[in-house]
């Protein structure tokens, strides 16, 4: 979606409506600020956390974990795709395994992850890898199957090696699927990350944005809690719209491959 003045206006109007309804609801129902803090106190809380650098610090940490998780997950998914491409049995086994694991929320694996990988950074990365790997693999496989038979003929006619074909033809032809997979992977890993951080706590002075939320909760800093939730929402949709929006505009939109 493009950021036009119109869409910006709509966004601003929605925000305004939320603020009005929020404050109106507070006034009408006489809600305690411990349940619903005022918009101003949320904003001032957000301001403090931003100014002190705490939120940015925690976000940076969260992003480093997600980056690592997506990197490893994507690498493994490509590897699995290659293995699946070599043998039909392997592909079928993988398909079955994926259909079992794909719907499993990463956080449900937590107890096992603690047992196998301990607690801390590694455990969170493992959970992110899980959140990334299955949707990516499923999409990569679907994308690989969807590569036009004509491309295969062109590739053979040009005497391309399997690697060259994979890199120069199959990969770009699969970009819509890769992006769809990455979108799911991002959404899932962002959620899994926040949940895991809320459970695990600080790892060497960093706990990520989830930990930020958790500490606000346990110390009953409701305004800070909402400030954190605001950040989680904004970052989520920023990545969704700005990052994925940019990548899509410069690839599949430009190529007319967006269905």
């Amino acid at each position, binding site marked *: 979606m493009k950021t036009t003045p119109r869409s910006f206006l709509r966004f601003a109007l929605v925000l305004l409506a939320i603020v009005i309804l929020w404050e109106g609801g507070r006034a009408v129902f006489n809600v305690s600020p411990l349940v619903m803090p005022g918009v101003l106190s949320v904003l001032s809380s957000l301001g403090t956390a931003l100014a002190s650098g705490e939120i940015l610090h925690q976000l940076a940490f969260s992003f480093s974990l997600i980056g690592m998780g997506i990197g490893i997950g994507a690498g493994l998914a490509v590897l699995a795709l290659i293995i699946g491409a070599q043998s039909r049995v392997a592909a079928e086994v993988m398909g079955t395994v994926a259909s079992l694991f794909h719907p499993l929320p990463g956080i449900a694996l937590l107890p096992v992850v603690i047992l196998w990988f301990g607690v801390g950074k590694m455990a969170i990365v493992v959970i992110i890898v899980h959140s990334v790997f299955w949707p990516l693999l499923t999409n990569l496989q679907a994308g690989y199957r969807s590569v036009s038979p004509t491309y295969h*003929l062109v590739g*053979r006619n040009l005497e391309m090696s399997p690697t060259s074909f994979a890199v*120069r033809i199959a990969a770009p032809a699969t*970009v819509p699927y890769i992006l769809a997979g990455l979108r799911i992977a991002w959404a899932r890993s962002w959620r899994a990350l926040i949940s895991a951080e809320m459970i695990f706590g600080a790892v060497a002075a960093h706990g990520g944005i989830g930990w930020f939320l958790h500490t606000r909760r346990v110390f009953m800093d409701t305004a800070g809690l909402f400030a954190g939730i605001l950040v989680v929402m904004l970052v989520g949709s920023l990545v969704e719209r700005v990052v994925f929006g940019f990548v899509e505009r410069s*690839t599949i939109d430009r190529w007319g*491959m967006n269905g």
Partner: protein
Amino acid sequence: MADSAEALSVLNIVKRYGDHLVLPGVSLSVGAREIVCLLGPSGCGKSTLAKIAASLLEPDDGTVRVNGVPVTAPDANRFMIFQEQDQIFPWKTALGNVTFPLRLDGVPDWRARGIETLREVGLEAAAEKYPHQLSGGMRQRVALARAFAMRPSVLIMDEPFASVDASLRFDLQDLLVRLVAEHSQAVLFVTHEIDESIRLAERIVVMSDDGAVTGEHTVPIDRPRDARSPVGSRLAHALFEQLSEHPSR
């Protein structure tokens, strides 16, 4: 009938799809600097034969030879233009598509050659456009340019001018004739247009509904040709008669 020492020859090709015998043992050959048109009704097996000639499809029986040497693997020097509409890559510009094989091949002046070939097919203005911004006919010309730019010694073209208008088609036919003369290429050209085959071909091979070769005609007209000349008209009539026979029905 098929000379096995020619630039491209297919000998006694048999191809089945399940129980359906598509090619019952077909032979034909194309010499250097020669355009051979394969003329036949829809569904008779032209594309199947063309892919076999490009070694992109394995025949159940028979051999394909290039310069008399039996081949089974495809090569970039025996370049095929497909009937399928999705043979050019949507993620590459027109120029990117045309230069793709050149760069794979390590042709040093790939860029200049790509632009030159695009100009020849009348697409220089569209060089930086992506396929989805082009019309069907323009896309077909990109595929054509991609093949021409490679200057292969054998060109196998499966109805390459199907979606361009009549006058552009004339220009492209002339271009093909010129390039074949320039680069001594051998061209197997699949079409179901009688006039097109008369304008282009040194020889016309007619296939019937059942996949068998029912006739072969040398075109005794000097170039530049006029398919409407008396000789051309007679030939067209004969071809029409031949195509209208339905031995299997």
